[in-house]
């Protein structure tokens, strides 16, 4: 281990200002932020998208993304002001004394090289270690990070290991030169909760063991609570507040910080219903020879919300494809109001199509960027309800009002809308068909917490007003608690458990539900420690 003076300041950022170039002009991204980090300390940076947290994290390494520039302030790393250094001078720090762990490990590894070569590349380049020595140490790191087959996993290529493993290997890569500072940029955001637990535990351990200072960037408070000693909240490129982790969680000062908790505070009382509007019966489905769904049975009560929970690859979106007729089941059927629906989209009547509508995760790609809001919403309204001219326009305005937007939006293009507004337009498009069942596929996953809250409240109100029945597909347990009446837990193409929300969330649980529920991070800084103890790691 390097000789590190405990408690001395490693990084000090003073009044940093960064601008980014877009739409033909410079915009302020970071508006005078101060930051201090001691050796061996972990600082959590949290905020919503656009808060400037990634820009600030990269700036801590003296790096700005193409199209960005530093317009003021200092970045003092161990006594050297990085803003005054050239790129070739900073390269001596990068991959040596400071390293970076990116959000998407899958995209951040070079597909052309073996993992161990990438893990040790910067260490060997910086001349810190000889190749054999660096390889041996990388294997030791793989072992410490609980990777399977630590001796041989490095011989693989990035596409040959899973996302969670890649994220851990990237942590090994960041640790390999034994740096003074690691910047973790949303390292677990793309992972499933059960994988996230392992990765968080591995990262926390290794940072502690080596006494490395870290900046941990995330939008998820409960994750940062496990990792950071101190938390700094950012908004619109400015600091909102900063405090020690426990203090911040217990008594946040600013309203904005409190609002970051908000989605967790929606609690919907569940309601039972006897009338079943939609039923998936004994469905088996395949992608080619791959068995995606195995004997799926799901009942959707009228005017209620059934949440479909599971990790990526569990088959929950495939259920939606079967219900909508995009994928024909091999065995089994879908019944709507006790009448069997034709298995494929082509066989269904206009009326049957109209009754089941879908809303997608990525509002961006679910809308044609060349169409105005009017074009997008009016198309199903004229196709299904046969409206034209002034009536059609009236209906579009009515739909906009239902989603809390006004007439002024009618001529806008999707690129002129915010993420939350885009998702609202997608909701309006689904409503335009006068559906009875709406399938929501991860509709809030790409949105910030506060925006999520707004969308969930809107969906709740629409359900009441229009007596809609929802199938709500999500991997996020907080969302499930906020919106559902009933819950279906899925794993590897099978239904693990199904029942009222209160039943699913209270023990005893089947093994998988237990694993899933216990893996959801809680707003308690001791949660990870306790969980690992309970699981006997």
């Amino acid at each position: 281990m390097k000789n590190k003076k405990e408690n001395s300041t490693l990084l000090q950022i003073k009044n940093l200002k960064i601008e980014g170039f877009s739409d033909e002009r410079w915009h302020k991204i970071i508006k005078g932020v101060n930051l201090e980090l001691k050796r061996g300390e972990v600082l959590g940076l949290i905020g919503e998208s656009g808060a400037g947290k990634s820009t600030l994290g990269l700036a801590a390494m003296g790096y700005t993304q193409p199209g960005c520039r530093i317009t003021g302030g200092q970045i003092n790393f161990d006594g050297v002001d990085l803003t005054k250094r050239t790129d070739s001078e900073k390269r001596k720090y990068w991959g040596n004394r400071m390293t970076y762990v990116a959000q998407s490990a899958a995209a951040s590894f070079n597909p052309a090289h073996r993992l161990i070569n990438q893990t040790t590349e910067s260490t060997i380049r910086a001349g810190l270690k000889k190749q054999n020595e660096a390889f041996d140490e990388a294997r030791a790191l793989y072992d410490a990070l609980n990777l399977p087959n630590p001796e041989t996993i490095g011989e693989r290529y990035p596409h040959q290991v899973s996302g969670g493993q890649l994220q851990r290997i990237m942590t090994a890569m960041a640790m390999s030169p034994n740096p003074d500072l690691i910047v973790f940029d949303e390292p677990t955001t793309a992972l499933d909760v059960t994988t996230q637990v392992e990765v968080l535990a591995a990262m926390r351990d290794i940072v502690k063991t080596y006494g490395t200072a870290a900046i941990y960037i995330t939008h998820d408070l409960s994750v940062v609570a496990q990792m950071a000693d101190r938390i700094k909240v950012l908004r619109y490129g400015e600091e909102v507040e900063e405090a020690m982790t426990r203090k911040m969680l217990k008594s946040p000062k600013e309203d904005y910080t409190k609002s970051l908790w908000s989605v967790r505070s929606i609690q919907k009382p569940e309601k039972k219903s006897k009338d079943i509007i939609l039923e998936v019966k004994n469905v088996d489905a395949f992608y080619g020879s791959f068995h995606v769904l195995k004997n799926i049975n799901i009942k959707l009560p009228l005017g209620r919300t059934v949440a479909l929970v599971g990790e990526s690859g569990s088959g929950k979106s495939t259920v939606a494809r079967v219900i909508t007729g995009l994928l024909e089941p091999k065995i089994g059927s879908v019944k709507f109001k006790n009448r069997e629906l034709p298995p494929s989209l082509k066989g269904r009547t206009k009326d049957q199509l109209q009754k089941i509508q879908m809303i997608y995760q990525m509002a961006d790609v679910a809308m044609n960027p060349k169409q105005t809001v009017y074009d997008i919403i009016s198309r199903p309204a004229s196709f299904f309800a046969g409206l034209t001219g002034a009536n059609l326009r009236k209906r579009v305005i009515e739909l906009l009002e239902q989603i809390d937007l006004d007439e002024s939006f009618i001529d806008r293009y999707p690129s002129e809308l915010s993420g939350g507004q885009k998702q609202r337009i997608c909701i309006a498009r689904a409503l335009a068909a006068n559906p009875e069942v709406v399938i929501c596929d991860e509709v809030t996953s790409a949105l910030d917490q506060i925006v999520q809250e707004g969308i969930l409240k809107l969906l709740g109100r629409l359900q009441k007003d229009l007596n809609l029945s929802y199938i709500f597909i999500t991997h996020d347990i907080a969302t499930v608690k906020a919106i559902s009446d009933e819950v279906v837990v899925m794993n590897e193409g099978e239904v693990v458990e199904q029942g009222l929300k209160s039943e699913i969330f209270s023990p005893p649980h089947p093994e998988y539900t237990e694993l899933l529920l216990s893996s959801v991070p809680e707003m308690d800084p001791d949660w990870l420690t306790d969980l690992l103890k309970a699981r006997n790691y």
Partner: protein
Amino acid sequence: MHPVVKTVLERLGLGLATLFFVSIIIFSAIEMLPGDFGQAILGQAALPETVAAFRQELGLDKPAYIRYFDWALGAIQGDLGTSFSGRNASGADRSAEVVDKIAPRLWNTLFLASMAALIAVPLSLILGILTALYHNSFFDRSVNTATLTTISFPEFFVAYILILFFASLNQIFPSLANVDPDTNFGERIYRTALPAFTLTLVIVAHMMRMTRAAIINLLASPYIQMAKLSGASQTEIILKHALPNAWAPIATVIAFNLAYLVVGVVVVEVVFVYPGVGQLMVDAVRTRDIPVVQGCALIFAVTYILLNLIADIIGIVTNPRLLHPK
């Protein structure tokens, strides 16, 4: 079997199938050429009986499909038939085997193509990498402008300009690239220098710009930012992190241009009076020497298919997802 071997064999099979269809197209297209060889050789005054006998002798009276199979089976064994030319009305037969006619010409063509390729491919790769490294710089813009200029002129114009400067005004190279089988190697290189330069100027732009674009396209990838943040220099990023992932599109464009060097050089051959396959084919079409035309066309098809197959294989073996499956 390793999936890469399987994919390569699949591509090979597809290549052979393509060749089969192309051979049918070549044969049918030539069937449709206007005019009759017998009539053309024997003259308008020939008696219908004489023409019919002549056609029978050449096997032209048989149905088309039988002639196709005779030809195709022969071609597989390396026999492209006997040239029609060298015969005349008096019945004298000094006709040659098509293979013997094509072989020396093909050798010349391949020699010129290889020479142009040996200059052009490394040149465009190096220029492509350098322009990617210094993209949007003055150097980048100059190279782009220069290569675009040379590709924008017709080949014969480029050829005459080179002749003007390097053969007429300064007598460095000969303006005629007349070689024969007795020309020695050094002399051959000297005489084919100007046509090779002409071809180089014509094909560099395409390959260089694709190399540049493929690399720059990858520079926006997250793993390039990762490489930067691990302290890699710009040169290292381009050579070690971008280039290995850029071979597939580059190889495709190189194959395309190399194929052009073999099948598209007839204009350059004419300007420099170079005895290549292109000229031979044009002459054969003029004299309705069907077996020679068919032979040349078949060789061109094989060249195209083979080079594209090689590009495909390069694309496969440089893709770790295919080379190292899960």
